[in-house]
């Protein structure tokens, strides 16, 4: 044994430290944070890290995407289904800039991710060197935090900080940019997790006075409505929400990202709110005398016209991010805290009630929506296949712990509306950003972290072709995702808007598409295409029973619309139920 190795070995025993390169320190830091899966794409500046990755193959599983955007979305989906912080690697310059859509998407949807980008050698930073880009500056508006490392010995502390910030409070993506020389230079490695940053206060201490005020408002309300958002899932408050709703008898409406926060077959489930949400919760938002918003941010797609939103309601906003409170909707009581903590302390203070008359108002509107929209969409019985019936069929034929992934557009809304979610399902979708091309890479990321749960992805023909290259990743790693392409040969949502608001002038929305079945076969992926109603069930059965990945292309009605719709500028109470 060489003298230096002896020294390193003995110091490792004594101080848990060892002399390693910056690249190795990065990987050791990730292992310390419990990381076992990384999505990424190599390149010049990050080569020292990838080289070390070969030595850590037994502990760190690297999934090579086909584009950095794909790696970013996959890492996000992985984080969403595992509840862990996702990790994504990219090289400098174009590698780093290709991540931006993925970072921004994770930022808007509050997903904890650590992005590692390589940077040119520190002496060259700022000189417009080959493959140099100011990724720190570019990513600043779409990261929770970012930092650049120029010295190898800074790596462990910065990575510790990155994981602490990404995963605490309102989660979000962070980016660490590591200069090439910092990857190569040596340091004495030791690791300590970060648990405190002086200027960063992820969660406040609970203010019991506010909790008591909330209880008073809740106990006196006659027509209260809970709006449950993504925060319920992020803070692991699904059980607490259920207990709270059942004790108070208050109906629960969900947002798109909060869709699995409450069982859809529960008698208190009021449906999804928002532009293409359900009829009853949208209309009755404006009859409610109290809105209890939990872990949601009153996005404009949820509120419609703010001036006409919930005019008769007092608003309690339970939200971990203070900057979201009073941002869109002025609230009467703000509780700037973690959803689970608040619900837990609120539960003993609220009275046990039932609200049959109020619930009946929802059921009456539900029946109208069912007759005018849901039944024609899910059981048309004649004419072409509808998106809704495909989604409903898959929903009926899958287990209730299935992970459902979507892209963005009409099919996404069809899934949100017609997939019957339980609390055991997960929905991986792009909410705030509405990123077309999210679906396919997200599906493979979700499947990588699924721990045996089935993954079904619904993707439109447009979004499918935005990140189609990730079929290569699915092929290489034999990732068992079931992909349902809802093909209407249109950019359907834009077409719907053109039909409704632009005099049916279909500017650049009609698509000439490839033969998706042949395409799948080029990647060695089994596939089927259906356009007849009778073929649908058998095809879904084949898809679900096939080992490994599968693509099912469903050719659906070309010019169908997603309804109901809160048209832009309209009040949530003025939902369009039928069109034409």
């Amino acid at each position, binding site marked *: 044994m060489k003298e230096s190795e002896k020294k390193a070995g003995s110091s490792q025993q004594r101080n848990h430290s060892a002399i390693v390169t910056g690249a190795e320190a990065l990987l050791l830091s990730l292992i310390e944070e419990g990381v076992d899966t990384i999505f990424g794409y190599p390149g010049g500046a990050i080569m020292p890290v990838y080289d070390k990755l070969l030595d850590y193959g037994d502990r760190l599983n690297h999934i090579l995407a086909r584009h950095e955007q794909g790696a970013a979305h996959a890492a996000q989906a992985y984080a969403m289904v595992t509840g862990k912080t996702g990790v994504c690697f990219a090289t400098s310059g174009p590698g780093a800039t290709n991540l931006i859509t993925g970072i921004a998407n994770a930022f808007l949807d509050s997903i904890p991710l650590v992005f590692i980008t390589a940077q040119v050698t520190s002496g060259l930073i700022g000189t417009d060197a080959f493959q140099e880009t100011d990724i*720190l500056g570019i990513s*600043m*508006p779409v990261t929770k935090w970012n930092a650049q490392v120029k010295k190898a010995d800074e790596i462990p502390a910065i990575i510790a900080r990155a994981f602490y*910030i990404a995963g605490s409070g309102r989660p979000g993506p962070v980016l660490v940019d590591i200069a090439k020389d910092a990857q190569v230079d040596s340091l004495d490695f030791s690791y300590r997790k970060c648990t*405190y940053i*002086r*200027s960063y206060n992820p969660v406040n201490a609970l203010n019991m006075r506010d909790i008591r005020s909330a209880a008073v408002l809740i106990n006196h309300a006659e027509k209260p409505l809970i709006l449950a958002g993504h925060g319920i899932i992020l803070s692991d408050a699904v059980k607490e929400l259920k207990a709270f709703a059942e004790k108070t008898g208050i109906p629960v409406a969900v947002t798109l990202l909060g869709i699995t926060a409450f069982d859809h077959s529960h008698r208190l489930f009021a449906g999804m709110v928002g532009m293409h949400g359900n009829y009853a919760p949208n209309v009755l938002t404006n009859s409610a005398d109290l809105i209890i918003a939990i872990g949601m941010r009153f996005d404009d797609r949820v509120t419609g016209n703010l001036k006409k939103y919930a005019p008769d309601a007092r608003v309690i906003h339970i939200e971990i991010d203070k*900057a979201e409170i009073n*941002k869109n909707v002025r609230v009467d009581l703000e509780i700037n805290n973690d959803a689970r903590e608040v619900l837990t302390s609120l539960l003993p203070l609220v009275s046990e009630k039932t609200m049959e008359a109020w619930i009946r108002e929802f059921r009456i509107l539900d029946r109208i929506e069912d007759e005018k929209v849901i039944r024609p969409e899910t059981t048309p019985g004649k004419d072409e296949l509808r998106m809704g019936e495909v989604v409903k069929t898959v929903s009926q034929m899958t287990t209730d712990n299935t992970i459902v992934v979507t892209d963005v557009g009409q099919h996404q809304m069809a899934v949100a509306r017609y997939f019957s979610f339980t609390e055991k399902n997960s929905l991986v979708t792009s909410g705030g950003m509405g990123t077309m091309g999210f679906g396919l890479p997200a599906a493979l990321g979700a499947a990588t972290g699924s721990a045996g749960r089935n993954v079904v992805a619904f993707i439109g023909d447009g979004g499918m072709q935005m990140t189609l290259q990730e079929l290569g990743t699915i092929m290489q790693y034999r990732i068992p995702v079931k992909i349902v392409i809802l093909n209407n040969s249109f950019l359907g949502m834009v077409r719907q808007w053109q039909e409704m608001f632009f005099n049916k002038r279909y500017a650049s929305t009609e698509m000439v598409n490839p033969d998706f079945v042949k395409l799948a076969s080029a990647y060695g992926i089994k596939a089927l295409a259906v356009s007849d109603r009778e073929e649908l069930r058998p095809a879904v059965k084949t898809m679900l029973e096939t080992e490994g990945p599968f693509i099912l292309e469903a050719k659906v009605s070309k010019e169908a619309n997603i309804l109901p719709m809160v048209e832009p500028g309209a009040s949530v109470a003025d939902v369009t139920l039928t069109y034409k």
Partner: protein
Amino acid sequence: MRQEYTISLFTENNIGILSRITLILTRRQINIESITASESAVSGVQMLTMVVRTTPDMVDKVARQIEKLVDVIKVFVHTSSEIIYQEIALYKVTTKGLMSGSMIGDIVRKYHAKILEVTPEYIVVEKSGTRPEISELLSVLEPCGLLQFVSSGRVAVTRQVKELNAYLKEMDEAERIRRQELEIYN
């Protein structure tokens, strides 16, 4: 209704923090009328004082968004009447223009300004005060042949500065206890 606000904020002295703050203001199309950065009374903590014109609703929103930044410790928003502040201005005026009449005496006695430099061509006058006081002297000196005028951002003190010190001490104390616990645990 738009009005003038002084946003005072305390940050860790980290690279890029000013960019992060201005990004938030830029997104909301809020112009920074003036900005001053300096060390605060607490070591390692930077103090930024910005003057902006916007609505009460908007200043509250951006203050919350700025405070959310990881490196920002605390943000305070004040209307100009709620703080004690000073700005400093330099006026370079032609000697000929200023020497006529009783102007020099007025400058020192009435406006509490200082003469910094006198040459045969120009005189440099310094004045610290509030924005209206500085503007007032500017309007007086303008007819005398003003060659240059420059004024600083704002330095301001508030009652909350004291609260910040207490707040920081509390945080440091909590951190000390946390570290002790961590060591015992390990």
